[in-house]
């Protein structure tokens, strides 16, 4: 099934259907909506990283001219941790934690009015690192938190411990000729989407709310907003705007319940737009981590045992992506003996949110650096060492399932042959190699296919398009229906316009929503065959669908002309009514995606600055539906990973105040920092998808961290374990190493 032959549309590179809107400024993003009579709301945020909130007095703000409504935590009773994160209740848990909100005639008036809200705080000692959080006698972020819910043990900042084990690790290490171990830290990094969070909400006298917002998942916004406001999901309609980047950061909510509540009080629409500073201080970054890794191997490179101890900062609420960190850390290897432990650690920092392959870049940074050190000790090529131990079809993954066909070996072999690898790095440069992995997800999707009277195809689906997925949907529909790409358009529906769909994330959209689109197209084909059979007075099993037309099957004696989709659509009123295809599913078998990356870097020994001279990404896409957008994912993920490796980090002062909450000081890569990013797409089809699709979005960010670290190691002749490899850290290390 996966070996699709003679593909006509899939694999081509047409212009995306939403393209013209986006290059002309017409496309509407989160902050672009205005409604008549609209108010603007702003959030008051905690100046303390950890404090008891003794009282909140809104009266000063409410007395101001132009202020219409104000709320605090007690006005938002539901939603559990989510609700507490959106508006603090008894405690402020990080610097920037929302405490109150004001709606006013203008954003400026709302901002000024925040100063007139009186909040009485009792500051508490903030917990600001993993080491501090897990130390004996640590201050507790949450006094009622017990590890894994075990109340027989004392309260702890470790919310949960996850373990994966197999075989006999001690014996494995004892059998090894060489053992390598290390301790690695990766700092907090932000998704850094260019569009700040924004929403507009209105609620009528019947209690029916409408929310417009930029999100990766309109259905999750609906259910989360409903929980926080203790409303029925059916009373909230969520209309997703275009989304200006998310990378996981827009899979949760911060503003929507506040806007709905303020609209309910004021009787007017309420718009909220975060500033960039608020985005940094109060929306989900990803975890800072501490990872300890150890690998034992025979002299021939065969790994005999591996272990990983991972601790991930969750922010002030449980939920660090340490589970996926554990799942990923050893996924590229076929191992008899391993032990993995992951710790979800509370600190007084913003609640982490998903960030592209959540949890994998940090743990795999540690392990892929350790593998690199092993290769050095064994004097083996780093690709050869990985080839010797790599997971293949049939390997049981460390997290349980047996891999079906996977492309790791194909990626490693392609890398070995690649001219960018066979050519050595330039004089003075270092090269680093690493492997990336993401397991990918399926989950629920719906799609509807509507055929216009002229045969034009409209896809209605529910996955916000964050990087060209409408084009992928149209290509898969063109391939399945056998009609030209140009005759197809795809729309992302709101919660009332389309069937339920899980959030765009986990690299699920092209796989799972794509499956729904393909099945809905197959539904259309079934109907077209029925309509043609009716027209031709044949049995439906005497009709075939070929190249976008109904034709009599070979051997069927019928003197008829083929009927195109347009022919059938034109006469649909006489054959049973409009053509409407649909599918809904819970997609299984997403198919893991592996990558191999390498980079050549040059280190300026006087300044400590690392320049990226070349970067190559090889990745298994299963089948590239629109190769340009697959390359785009690989290139974009590479540069995000390079930014994290080289510069990006949250810098806190001793009180837990982020000192670099802006794009000037939290420096993401800019055009002049980067070379071209070379890509090679490998296609080992996913057996669970008719065209072989694997998700491709997450994997690209995983390997660049270790690849960069290993390249700097190669260039300097010694290793710097912690990220980022920013000029001050590199310079300090150069000075320390003479």
């Amino acid at each position, binding site marked *: 099934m996966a070996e699709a032959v003679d593909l006509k549309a899939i694999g081509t*590179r047409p*212009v*995306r259907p*939403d*393209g*013209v809107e*986006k*290059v*002309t*400024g*017409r*496309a*509407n*993003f989160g*902050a*672009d909506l*205005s409604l008549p009579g609209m108010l603007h709301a702003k959030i008051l945020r905690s100046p303390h990283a950890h404090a008891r909130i003794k009282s909140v007095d809104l009266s000063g703000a409410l007395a101001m001219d132009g202020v219409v409504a104000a709320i605090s935590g007690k006005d938002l009773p539901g939603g559990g941790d989510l609700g507490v994160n959106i508006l603090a209740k008894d405690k402020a848990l990080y610097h920037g934690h929302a405490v109150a909100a004001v709606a006013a005639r*203008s954003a*400026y008036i709302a901002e000024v009015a925040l100063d007139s809200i009186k909040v009485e705080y009792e500051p508490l000692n903030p917990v600001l690192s993993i080491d501090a959080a897990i130390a004996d006698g640590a201050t507790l972020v949450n006094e009622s938190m017990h590890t894994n819910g075990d109340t027989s043990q004392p309260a702890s900042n470790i919310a949960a411990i996850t373990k994966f084990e197999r075989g006999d690790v001690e014996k494995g290490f004892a059998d090894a000729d060489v053992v390598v171990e290390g301790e690695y830290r990766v700092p907090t990094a932000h*998704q*850094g*989407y*260019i*569009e*700040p969070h924004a929403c507009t909400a209105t609620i009528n006298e019947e209690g029916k709310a409408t929310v417009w917002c930029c999100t990766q998942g309109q259905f999750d916004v609906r259910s989360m907003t409903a929980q926080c406001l203790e409303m029925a999901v059916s009373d909230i309609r969520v209309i997703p705007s*275009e*989304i*200006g*980047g*998310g*990378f996981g950061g827009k899979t949760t909510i911060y503003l929507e319940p506040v806007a709905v509540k303020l609209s309910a009080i004021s009787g007017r629409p309420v718009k909220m*737009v975060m500033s*960039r500073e608020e985005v940094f201080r109060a929306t989900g970054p990803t975890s800072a981590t501490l990872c300890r890794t150890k690998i034992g191997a025979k002299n021939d490179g065969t790994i005999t045992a591996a272990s990983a101890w991972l601790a991930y900062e969750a922010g002030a609420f449980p939920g660090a992506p340490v589970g996926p960190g554990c799942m990923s850390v050893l996924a590229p290897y076929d191992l008899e003996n391993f032990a993995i432990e992951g710790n979800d650690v509370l600190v007084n920092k913003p609640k982490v949110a998903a960030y592209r392959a959540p949890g994998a870049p940090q743990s795999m940074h540690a392990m892929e650096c350790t593998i690199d050190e092993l290769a050095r000790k064994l004097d083996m090529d780093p690709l050869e060492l990985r080839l010797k131990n790599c997971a293949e079809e049939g390997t049981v993954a460390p997290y349980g399932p047996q891999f079906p066909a996977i492309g790791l070996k194909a990626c490693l072999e392609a890398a070995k042959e690649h001219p960018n690898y066979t050519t050595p790095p330039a004089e003075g440069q270092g090269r680093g190699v690493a492997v990336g992995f993401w397991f990918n997800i399926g989950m629920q999707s719906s799609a509807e296919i509507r055929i216009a009277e002229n045969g034009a195809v409209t896809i209605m689906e529910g996955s916000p398009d*964050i*990087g*060209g997925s409408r084009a992928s949907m149209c290509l898969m529909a063109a391939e399945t229906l056998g009609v030209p790409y140009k005759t197809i358009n795809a729309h992302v529906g709101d919660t009332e316009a389309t069937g339920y769909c899980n959030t765009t994330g986990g690299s699920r959209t092209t796989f799972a929503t794509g499956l729904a689109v393909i099945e809905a197209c197959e539904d259309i084909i079934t109907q077209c065959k029925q309509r043609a059979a009716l027209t031709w007075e044949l049995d439906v099993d005497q009709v075939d669908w070929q190249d976008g037309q109904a034709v009599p099957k070979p051997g069927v004696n019928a003197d008829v002309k083929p009927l195109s989709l347009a022919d059938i659509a034109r006469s649909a009123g006489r054959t049973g009514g409009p053509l409407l295809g649909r599918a809904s599913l819970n997609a299984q078998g997403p198919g893991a995606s592996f990558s191999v990356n390498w980079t050549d870097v040059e280190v300026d020994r006087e300044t400590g600055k690392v320049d990226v001279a070349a970067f190559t990404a090889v990745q298994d896409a299963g089948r590239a539906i*629109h190769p*340009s*957008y697959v*390359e*785009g*994912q690989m*290139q*974009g*993920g*590479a*540069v*995000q990973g390079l930014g994290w490796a080289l510069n990006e980090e949250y810098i806190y002062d001793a009180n837990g105040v982020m000192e670099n909450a*802006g*794009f*000037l000081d939290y420096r*993401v*890569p*800019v*055009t*002049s*920092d*980067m070379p*071209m*990013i070379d890509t090679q797409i490998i296609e080992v089809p996913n057996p669970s998808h008719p065209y072989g699709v694997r998700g491709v979005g997450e994997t690209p960010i995983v390997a660049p961290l270790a690849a960069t670290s290993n390249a700097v190691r190669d260039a300097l002749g010694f290793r710097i374990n912690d990220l980022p490899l920013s000029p001050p850290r590199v310079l300090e290390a150069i000075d320390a190493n003479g």
Partner: protein
Amino acid sequence: MAKVHVSTTVNGQPQEVLVEPNDSLLDTLRDGLGLTGTKEGCATGDCGACSVTLDGRLVCSCLVLGVEADGKEVGTIEGVADGDGLHVLQQKFLEHAALQCGVCTPGFIVAAKALLEKNPDPDETTIRYWLAGNLCRCTGYDKIVRAVQDAASELATPA
């Protein structure tokens, strides 16, 4: 604060607009004139999503006051395509898949157009440094740079 009357020209059209003295040009364009193609990514001049031209010079509209547009000519993304079709840069951004989410795209196109008007034949390094004030978090810049290179070479080819 009393609003200030501003007479300006936007994309060749005369415009009258009332602005708050503390409104940025970005606020004036988006909220005063309804031209929401220009985006706010930071409001501190670090991301370039709000790039426009002011009397032909590339600026971050978040760093200019709305009142400063009085008597000046403003160029925004809405004025890049002429009545006949897309500008070559817009076409090349589409053909090269040089956008993913698209929120930085208006700023990149306005900035790249300003570059090509100043320097019709920029090399890769020149393009990368000129566009260093525009952040894109999706593409890794590769396809953006290629789109600008391709647009430059197409503009240089006699029709």
